[in-house]
């Protein structure tokens, strides 16, 4: 009995200690009143990689970079057009050598002036193999990239030869090939400038990143929350309309949604699939469902002889025709996807290269023709189509099963198509990249920047970085090269579309649907919108 009493006291002491530390750790966030000083709380996911501009390749980390950094260009949240931000001007005469002039008067939030060096140092860091930056390939067009980031072995140079500081506010860039749309890629966060503290005190910077955007990071608890506050001295014209953003990590987006409904959270930027049926009733017009620069496709293994046959084109076109896209996007995705009829995304706009219906008949549902085409092409290789997907996240099982159902119905054969789940995303990706798959697999592409080039070249150019199926076509390659060399933007875009027509003829991957971004918000805030990357435009949110 005495022992029990002592245990009780120990438990109480522990309790007091824990509560005390919790109190000490808390505070800071919350409250803040309404209007221009109001704080918006928003759902967040734990970023997968350390928060460095050139190392962040997923939405959760990208969200933060979007608030904390501004680069040479910025994509208009509505139109996607790349407009100058920190760039005074970017000049070129030959689409290969560029001179970048940086605007005067910009500083980082720690007061350090932004100069040409801030960019050159940051890009050199991002490209260097030793630094393990997952977005290093963004600098791949710059001359000297193969020296600082060779495919094998170690780097033979530490700086990109193609980057030179001309004077404090000017630097020159030499590319390895002509690339007329290159300046438009510079809105991507990987190209953000970095302050000197990033290099001198890297660990300290990672614990609390310092940038030059409309917000500064006030408090960052890794894995659970981040408080961003409006930076009053921000020199840009896209100043924050609210006092700050509190990002809260949710283990499950269902919980985030529940919190929103209970009034415990202001903004959820990923409405869970299971709630799509209720979302209209729950939120009314506070539910946003707008197109994002994401397309989903079915890819095929061209490294496998079975698939790389002359008749294969007809088989793939037939399979594409056998998929009832309208029905699947309606019933399974509750209209949060739009049936795809080309290989880009509606967010590009007509001027940017999106062309509805470019795929033509092969992307329209026609069960009778589908069966005929597949049979003409020699039938499905191996007699059965296996669609691989990762079963851990993203509820892919539902739609893969639906696609297979649709194909099976068209073929009049219950075993023509089956889903083939892979346990984890990492395993799925490693099977794809090691060319272990012998059937089709689900593929997805989220654009890096709103350019038609980004939807075509990395995915279908011979040996391109994300050409997982190893498809190769000389005509396509030469059209892409030609488009990149065009100095006139409209001409470049139309040449890219010519290349896209090759995809329509050959059907190397089947376009399925364009993905929308979905978000919901509370009655406390207004002026909420998603940009083309399906990230909320945080700085424009107003608090009532």
């Amino acid at each position, binding site marked *: 009995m005495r022992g029990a009493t002592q245990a009780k006291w120990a438990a109480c002491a522990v309790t007091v200690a824990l509560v005390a530390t919790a109190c000490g750790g808390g505070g800071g966030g919350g409250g803040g009143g309404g209007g221009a000083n109001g704080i918006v709380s928003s759902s967040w996911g734990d970023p997968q990689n350390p928060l460095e501009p050139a190392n962040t390749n997923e939405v959760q980390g990208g969200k933060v970079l979007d608030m904390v950094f501004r680069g040479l260009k910025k994509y208009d949240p509505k139109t996607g057009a790349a407009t100058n931000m920190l760039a005074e001007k970017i000049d070129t005469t030959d689409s290969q050598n560029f001179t970048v002039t940086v605007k005067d008067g910009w500083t980082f939030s720690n007061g350090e002036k932004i100069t040409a060096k801030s960019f050159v140092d940051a890009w050199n860091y991002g490209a260097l193999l030793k630094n393990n930056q997952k977005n290093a390939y963004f600098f791949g067009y710059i001359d000297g990239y193969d020296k600082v980031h060779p495919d094998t072995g170690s780097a033979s140079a530490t700086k990109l030869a193609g980057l030179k500081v001309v004077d404090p506010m000017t630097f020159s860039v030499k590319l390895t090939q002509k690339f007329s749309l290159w300046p438009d890629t510079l809105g991507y966060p990987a190209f953000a400038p970095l302050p000197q503290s990033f290099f001198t005190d890297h660990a300290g910077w990672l614990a609390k990143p310092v940038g030059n955007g409309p917000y500064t990071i006030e408090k960052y608890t890794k894995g659970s929350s981040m408080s961003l506050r409006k930076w009053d001295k921000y020199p840009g014209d896209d100043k924050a309309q609210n006092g700050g953003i509190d990002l809260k990590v949710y283990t499950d987006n269902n*919980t985030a949604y529940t*919190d929103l409904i209970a009034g415990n959270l202001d903004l959820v930027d990923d409405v869970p699939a299971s709630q799509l049926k209720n979302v209209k009733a729950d939120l009314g017009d506070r539910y946003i469902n707008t197109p994002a620069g994401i397309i989903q496709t079915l890819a095929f293994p061209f490294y496998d002889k079975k698939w790389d046959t002359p008749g294969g084109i007809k088989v793939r076109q037939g399979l594409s025709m056998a998929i009832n896209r309208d029905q699947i996007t309606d019933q399974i995705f509750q209209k949060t996807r739009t049936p795809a009829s080309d290989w880009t995304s509606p967010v590009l706009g007509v001027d940017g290269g999106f062309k509805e219906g470019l795929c033509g008949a092969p992307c329209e549902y026609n069960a009778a023709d589908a069966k005929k085409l597949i049979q003409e092409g020699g039938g499905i290789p191996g007699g059965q189509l296996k669609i691989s997907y990762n079963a851990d996240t993203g509820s892919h099982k539902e739609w893969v099963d639906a696609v297979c159902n649709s194909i099976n119905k068209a073929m009049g054969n219950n075993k023509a198509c089956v889903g083939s789940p892979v346990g984890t995303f*990492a395993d799925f990706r490693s099977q794809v*990249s090691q060319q272990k798959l012998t059937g089709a697999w689900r593929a997805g592409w989220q654009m890096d920047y709103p350019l038609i080039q980004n939807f075509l070249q990395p995915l279908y150019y011979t040996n391109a970085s994300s050409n997982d199926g190893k498809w190769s076509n000389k005509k396509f390659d030469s059209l892409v090269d030609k488009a990149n060399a065009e100095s006139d933007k409209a001409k470049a875009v139309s040449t890219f579309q010519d290349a896209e027509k090759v995809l329509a003829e050959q059907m190397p991957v089947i376009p399925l649907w364009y993905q929308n971004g979905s978000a919901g918000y509370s009655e406390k805030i207004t002026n909420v919108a998603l940009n083309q990357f399906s990230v909320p435009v945080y700085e424009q949110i107003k608090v009532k």
Partner: protein
Amino acid sequence: MGRYVIRRLLQMIPVFFGTTLLIFLMVNVMGDPIAGLCGDRQCDPATAAQLRSEFGLDKPVWQQYATYMGNVFTGDFGTAFNGQKVTELMGTAFPITIRLTIVAIVFEVVIGITLGVITGLRRGRPVDTTVLILTLVVISIPTFVTGLLLQLLLGVEWGVIKPSVSPEAPFNELLVPGLVLASVSLAYVTRLTRTSIAENASADYVRTATAKGLPRRRVVLRHLLRNSLIPVVTFIGTDVGALMGGAIVTERIFNIHGVGYQLYQGILRQNSQTVVGFVTVLVLVFLAANLIVDLLYAVLDPRIRYA
């Protein structure tokens, strides 16, 4: 007693190595984790190779295990993919889960044993039947249903609690999640106590105690309950480890950033450093809990002490 404790401690060594090796192999079988780090695009081969060598993934599995264990003994549990030290993750996750477990255990002990004693002494009466039916209901409903239901009712409909727990996770916010986590075990504790009490209620020593004229309260608490607690203590003891490891569902529902969350995240990202590290600590907790249970036997029943 001392030799007994030492023997138990020595037994822990092979268990410790066996479990960590198993977990290590299991995570390894799942494939190449680096491939998942670059999203839907392929990592460029040079960066992937560099990351692999940095995390030691380019070496054979036995060598990875040996290095890992070597590091563990110097207190280095490696680094998670997001650049955080695993020890740092543990430092934030374990206190939260321990708090949650404490809440759950307290519920089990207080409610479970009280209900068990009440029903055990009133066998066959309406109270007994009601509680039995209730425990049956609780046992048959999965935790995630109870959790989501309570979250919806208390959090959204009635606004009594916040549906999600804040990152600091203080005790008062953990009451409902703790109750959810404890619910099934609580039902078992009730039933175990009830049976045990009912069995011993007619034992000779209880009759003797009553015949001696001891107050009923003292008979029940000192004589009857003390002797009936052995199976219950065994259950609660092993439950400590199970609760800590099994909190994945509850933690996910209530957005608690504890061990379950880190484990789930680690498994999704195939981060062997995180998974093996956390499981290693959980194994130790489990072993320690079992040891304490065995020691508690001796406290409850002196005959075991001298055996």
